[in-house]
Structure formats: C-alpha cells, structure tokens
C-alpha cells in the first residue's frame, strides 16, 4: 500500500516536505559516523583543534598506525575464523533440523521449537556466566572454540528459525516424487531439497555472520590477547593507560564496521525477512 501524495495542488509541496524530512533524518542518522570517519583521517593536532576543523588535509597515519600493530591483523583473522565457524556449525547442525521441523510432525516438536525461541530471546549474559565457569574448568576459556560455542547460542536458533520458514514455503511435491522414485529421505534431502534451499541458507548465514561479527560481550569475556576479536581489540584503544586514543579508536572502529557495511548492503533485502521472521509467522 504505497501512498500517492494527494491532490495536484498540494502534491508539489508534499513531495518537497517528504524529501526535506528524509534528508534531515538521513543527515542526523549518518552524521556521527561521518564525523568519526573524518576524525580517523585527522592528525592528533587536527583532532583536538578548537574550533573543530571541517576542512583539512587528510592523513592516513592513524590507519598505518593501527595496521602496524600486528595484533590488529590477528584480531581480524580471529573474528573471521570465529564468526565463520559459528555460522558453519549452525548451518550443519541446524539446517537438517529445520527441515524436520518444517516437514515431519514428531513428538516434542513444538516444545523444541519453543526452546529455540527462548534460546534466542534470553539475555546472553545469563548464559555467559555459567558458560565461563564451565569453560574455565574445562580449560576452554581463551580458546576460539569457546567463542564459537557461545556464538551458536544465537546463530543456531536463527538458522533453524529462518530455514524452517523457508522449507515450509518450498513445495513438497519435488521430494515426494523423489521418494516415490525410490530415493530415501536422506538422498532426497541432499540432492533435491538442499540445492533448492540455497537462497535461504545464504540469508541465514548473512544474518548470523553479521550478529557474530558485531558481538562484543561473549568475545570480551571468553578471549585473551591471542584470541580476541575485532570489537574487543577496538575497545582496548579507548581504555588505554593514557585515556582514549582518538586516532586508534576512530581508525580501528571504521575498519571494524567496513566489512559489515559492505556485507549488509549486499544482503539488504534479506535483512527485514530475517529480523522479523518467525515473529510474524508465529
């Protein structure tokens, strides 16, 4: 239901008002990021200039400085490994289950699905406290593996949730004819259903990857210098001995969000579907 702006006389004014309001809002929403992007290209002197500089000769010294620290590259690699593994694990484990949830009534199905919803909804800190204690006694804390497991608490429910909806929308006739032709359930799932489910799996992975990439709490508690992820690494720039390192915070912050922004734009149409899926369908 798109609104077409009213009568001919007021149409011009209405359009102008809508554009003006949206431009103002966009400016408001983007300003903090743009300003910090600008800061990241300023020298220390320029950052603290009073009044603030709106025009200056940009420098990349902050970025050189951040990249110069070898552990920033390590943190980047860690984030990539940890979020990738969490998504991979959730897909391997969750997609077959989502298929069963969508197609086969079984005892405890509603309960299990409800438990998954609860898993997604509950505060992460509540899982993190016992998880940390258990992992520390098992010698797992500070390993990347512990973070992968922690991330699965949100990525697994999300995968099952999105994929169940996706499988429900797929017509069942294709698998049924494969069954009639003598394929067993596993073969039909592997050869017929999975290839069809690729777009859903892409959407689910994108959302999970974004959540995992953006996580701070789990990684902050469960990692050390060797295994820390980008958002944790970035926080260390703001909590140094000499106060906030403006160059470090701004440059590393921009580097942390650059992949997410690119990624999100590539996947924009999947975002809403994933954010509200399940909730609307019930």
């Amino acid at each position, binding site marked *: 239901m798109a609104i077409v702006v009213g009568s001919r006389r007021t149409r011009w004014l209405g359009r102008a008002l809508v554009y003006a309001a949206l431009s103002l*809002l966009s400016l408001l929403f*983007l300003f903090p990021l743009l300003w910090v992007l600008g800061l990241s290209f300023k020298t220390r002197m320029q950052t603290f200039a009073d009044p603030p500089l709106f025009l200056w000769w940009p420098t990349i010294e902050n970025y050189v400085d951040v990249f110069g620290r070898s552990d920033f590259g390590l943190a980047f690699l860690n984030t990539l490994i940890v979020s990738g593994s969490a998504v991979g694990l959730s897909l391997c484990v969750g997609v077959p289950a989502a298929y069963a949830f969508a197609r086969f009534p079984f005892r405890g199905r509603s309960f299990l699905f409800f438990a998954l919803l609860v898993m997604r909804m509950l505060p992460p800190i*509540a899982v993190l406290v016992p998880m940390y204690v258990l992992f520390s006694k098992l010698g797992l804390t500070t390993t990347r593996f512990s973070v992968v497991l922690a991330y699965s608490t949100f990525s697994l429910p999300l995968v099952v949730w999105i994929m169940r909806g996706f499988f429900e929308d797929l017509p069942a006739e294709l698998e049924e004819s494969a069954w009639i032709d003598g394929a*067993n359930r596993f073969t039909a799932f592997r050869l017929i259903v999975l290839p069809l489910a690729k777009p859903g799996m892409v959407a689910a992975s994108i959302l999970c990857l974004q959540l995992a990439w953006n996580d701070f709490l789990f990684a902050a508690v469960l990692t050390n210098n060797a295994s820390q992820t980008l958002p944790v690494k970035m926080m260390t720039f703001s909590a140094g001995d000499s106060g906030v390192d403006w160059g470090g915070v701004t440059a590393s912050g921009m580097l942390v969000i650059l992949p997410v922004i690119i990624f999100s734009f590539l996947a924009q149409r999947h975002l809403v579907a994933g954010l509200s899926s399940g909730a609307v369908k019930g």
Partner: protein
Amino acid sequence: MADASTILAKPPLAATAPARRRPLALDRYFVTLTVLPTFVVMVAIFGLPLLFSLYLSFTGWSPNQALLGGAFVGFDNYADLFADPVFIGSIGITFGYTTAAVSAQLAAGLGIALLLNVDLPYMRAFRTALVVPMMITPIVGALCWKLLLDPSHGVVNYWLGQKIIWLGQPDTAMLAVWLVNVWQSTPYVALILLAGLRSLPSEPREAAAIDGASRWQMFLHITLPLLKPYLLVALLLRTIFEFRAFDNIYAMTGGGPANATMVLSMFTYLASFVRFDFALGAAASWMMLLMSMLICLFFIAVIRRRDAN
C-alpha cells in the same frame, strides 16, 4: 505456535507418500538423526549452562573450588541481591530504560516508515542511509558517540557552546545512552513497520478516500489498526532486546556515574567478571531470566488474545 493449524492443514507427508517401495530402514530414523544434533548442541550450550547457573546461585561457589564443590547456601545469594540497593535500583533502571527506549523507537520508527512509504523517486537511497546505524557494530556506534559527546573536544559541546560533561552526570549520562540506543535501533523498527505498510491491502484506504475521509482520519482509523500486528512484533522484539542492553552502556558509561546507568546486564557482568562472585552473578542472571520470561509470556498472551478476537 502455528503448529496445530499446519498439521491440520497438511496431512503428514509420510501418510501421503505411497508405500510402493518398502522405505529404507534408515528412513524411520530420519527425524531423529536430523533433530538430534540440534538437540545435543542446545543441551550442551544452553540447557546445561542454565541448570549449572541455577545450581551456582544456591551455592557459595568461588573460582578456586571444584566445579561442583560449592557449599549449599540456600537462598542466601538471592537474599543478598535483594538487600543490595544497587541491584534493586538496576531493576528500576532497566525497566525505565527499556520503556523509554522502546517507546521512542516505535514513535520515530513509525514516522520514518510512513515517510519511506511515500511513493517517490530515490526512496531506496534514503532507506539505505537510514538503516546504517542498525548495521554497524553496536560497540563502535557507541564509541563514536562517546567521542562526539567528549566534554572538551566533542563536536556536540562545540555546537552547544557549553562544556557539558555528558557521561559524567547521572541525568545526562542516561539521556546520552538512551539517545544512542534510539539512534541504533529505530531503523530496525522502521524496517519492520515499512514491510508492514507495504503488505497492507489498499482497498480499505481507497474506500475511505471515496467516502471523503481526511488523510489523518485514514491514518488513525485504517492504517494504524491494520498495522497493529507489526507494531506488536516490533514492540515485543525491541522490548526483549533492550531488556538485555549491554554494549552501549559498557562502552559509554560502564554503569556509572553513581550507578545511574546500571542496567541488569551490567550489574550481572560486574558481579561475575569484575568481582568474580559467580554465585551472585548466577543468582542475578536467573532473576533476569525470570523477568524476560515473564515479559515474553505477557506479550504472547497479548498476541494470542488479539488473534482470538
């Protein structure tokens, strides 16, 4: 929740597939084999930790003890919690913060969704620009704002021509944290509501237009009621996510000043990972669990009642 109806609508597939060939023995275990891994992972990373934290909350466990070595102390941890004015305060702060944040997000999100729903050229560009705060890493967004609000070098104070210590005073700290949250999460609400607006049928509006309803009347009596399911979903999701708020507050204030922004997540974090009182942290996290379960149940009841009508 729609399970009962879907089962009724579609007969189980196993029954419709003709048994021309004897299915492989393995097929009988298909559901078990596909669901079991998920079940095992859920138990391992969710069920067991929660049970363990319930156990912890009734012990005087300290980190140098064996996993199950804590002495049973009954409800002492919970009694300690409720005797702690900071914890009691954090309950109020969490609910107040959640309410203020979610209502602002809904109001602003509805406004933005309505604007974006106008059929004009270049709307995609605006939509793209407006959802950026939602996509970026929350902790980075919060730190950006922290620099903007810096008392001596921040651009906000420069424009205001004052030296306000935003994050150093209880009132302004809360205001700042709330503002950053609204900035980050309004796009989320706007996207859900925009999807809702796009899916609404156009007939009721056309009929009302023919009957001479004003635009405001149409909005109030047609669009808004039709949009209600989407508003409810946004309300539910945002309430649940704001209730667990942590990243912004950690990055901006750390719960201070004078515990003014001490939400429950922050309290639990500090108790567990700064003071290493895991037993108290476990008790606090179970209180959080119970509260968020209550919130969920309340919303589910509301949605059910609406569906029943």
